């Protein structure tokens, strides 16, 4: 099946930062988590993919077509939620519905009203009186009401409390139940991605370090905790990243079961997405 979004060699240079030949694709019916530290290039990827900034190089295709080939039709099928609501505070959800209905051909007023009801958003109250969580719920309701095939979320859950984030994650999982819907979710909250993502793309200093199924990371990746002598005995090609702490070495490996069998004197822990991120960002790679 054709990927819903395919990014190839996406490059964008700013003074002091380069998004460097980024490539990944999102299969239909999946959630792709885009993870990386602040300033790693997550938002630049999204901005360039949506033609909000000019690309220096590379292509981004949505269901096989570049956005510039038919922007109006393609954008009908993309719902976007940024990290804050983009409507002025004196508007109400009802007025935002009218504005959005005029913008989208696929807009479904009944879907929108259902979302407002489900998310307990008063339709005639000015949004400046809403909490951050309510505003983000409203952004999501708007994004879902024109029946997009792809939802792009740029740090949409950051700044929300855990309960609210959990509600959001449930909505995302509902959205991808239909096998043709997909989500690109940029976040630095790795626990959210651990809960819902099917794939993790890890971006660091503008480069993709890996793009892998989440289960492969969680079930196969491990961290060897060992002393200096044991670290020296670890086969170097097996080391993805390592970090020296006071009296201990943390070594990221791609096959924890193999490591457990091979290095019996060392402790091999499971690796969370956070652990992997930290080791790649703060640790070193074997040259």
């Amino acid at each position, binding site marked *: 099946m054709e990927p819903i979004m395919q990014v190839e060699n996406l490059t964008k240079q700013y003074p002091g930062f380069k998004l460097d030949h980024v490539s990944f694709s999102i299969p239909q019916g999946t959630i792709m988590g885009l993870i990386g530290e602040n300033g790693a290039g997550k938002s630049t990827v999204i901005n360039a993919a949506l033609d*909000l900034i000019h690309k220096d190089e590379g292509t981004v295709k949505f269901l096989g077509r570049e956005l510039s080939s038919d*922007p109006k039709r393609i*954008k009908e099928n993309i719902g*976007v939620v940024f990290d804050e609501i983009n*409507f002025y505070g*004196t508007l109400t959800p009802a007025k935002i519905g009218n*504005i*959005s209905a005029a*913008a989208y051909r696929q807009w479904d007023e009944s879907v929108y009203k259902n979302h407002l009801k489900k998310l307990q958003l008063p339709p005639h109250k000015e949004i400046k009186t809403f909490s951050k969580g309510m505003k983000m719920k409203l952004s999501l309701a708007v994004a879902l009401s024109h029946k997009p095939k792809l939802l792009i979320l740029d740090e949409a859950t950051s700044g929300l409390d855990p309960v609210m984030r959990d509600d959001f994650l449930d909505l995302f999982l509902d959205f991808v139940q239909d096998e043709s819907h997909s989500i690109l979710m940029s976040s630095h909250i790795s626990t959210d991605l651990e809960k819902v993502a099917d794939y993790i793309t890890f971006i660091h200093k503008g480069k993709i370090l890996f793009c892998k199924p989440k289960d492969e990371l969680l079930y196969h990746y491990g961290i060897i905790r060992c002393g200096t002598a044991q670290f020296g005995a670890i086969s170097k090609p097996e080391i993805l990243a390592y970090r020296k702490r006071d009296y201990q070495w943390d070594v990221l490996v791609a096959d924890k079961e193999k490591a457990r069998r091979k290095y019996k004197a060392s402790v091999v822990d499971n690796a969370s997405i956070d652990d992997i991120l930290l080791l790649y960002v703060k640790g070193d790679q074997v040259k």
Partner: protein
Amino acid sequence: MKSLVLKDLYNIGHNVKSMVFILLVFACIFIPSLGAEAYIIMSGVLCSMMVSTTFGFDSNSKWTKYAMVTPITKKELVGSKFAVLLIFSAGGAVSGLVIGSIGGILTHKVIVGNIRDVLTLLLTGLLSLVIAEIIGGTSIPLLFQFVAEKARMSTFVSFAIPFAVFFGIYAILTLLGVSFSDNLIFMLICLSPLTALVWNLVMYRISYAVFEKKELLY
């Protein structure tokens, strides 16, 4: 385009009461001193400047970036600002005409039933719309370039540019020996909507060129 205009009208809706209040205060101050005609022009220009307020709202809510992920083209976004300007300018000219006429009658500066007075007011209303369109239209590319943070500077420049251009043309024509008779002035006023149309077409192209190059990070 409809969604963009609707958004601006909803946003500006909150400012309508204060704008009506300002127009009434100005009517009390300027109709007795400067006359109904000056007030009508002032009303059109004042209302046209509300277009800069809409840029302020957009900047505040980072609307423009969001608008570009919806099925709205850059051309439509730029065009919508000129459509909104036309609505504001027409509203200002018409309300100026109505309030100015009533004020003129109350201050005995306009005589009811005097065809010449009525015609003067109607022509002033048309001129108000034209001036508002030209000044407001000049502010749009500046607002796209500098956004809301330099709105005051944009407002000043949007007055200065048309004044300099039209005064320059007037000076050249005078040097060439053209004399501005009442008939010529009447003809120029009748042709002025065409001037405003051409002026704003140029401003639209400049605005689009400015906006096309912009990177929408915010």
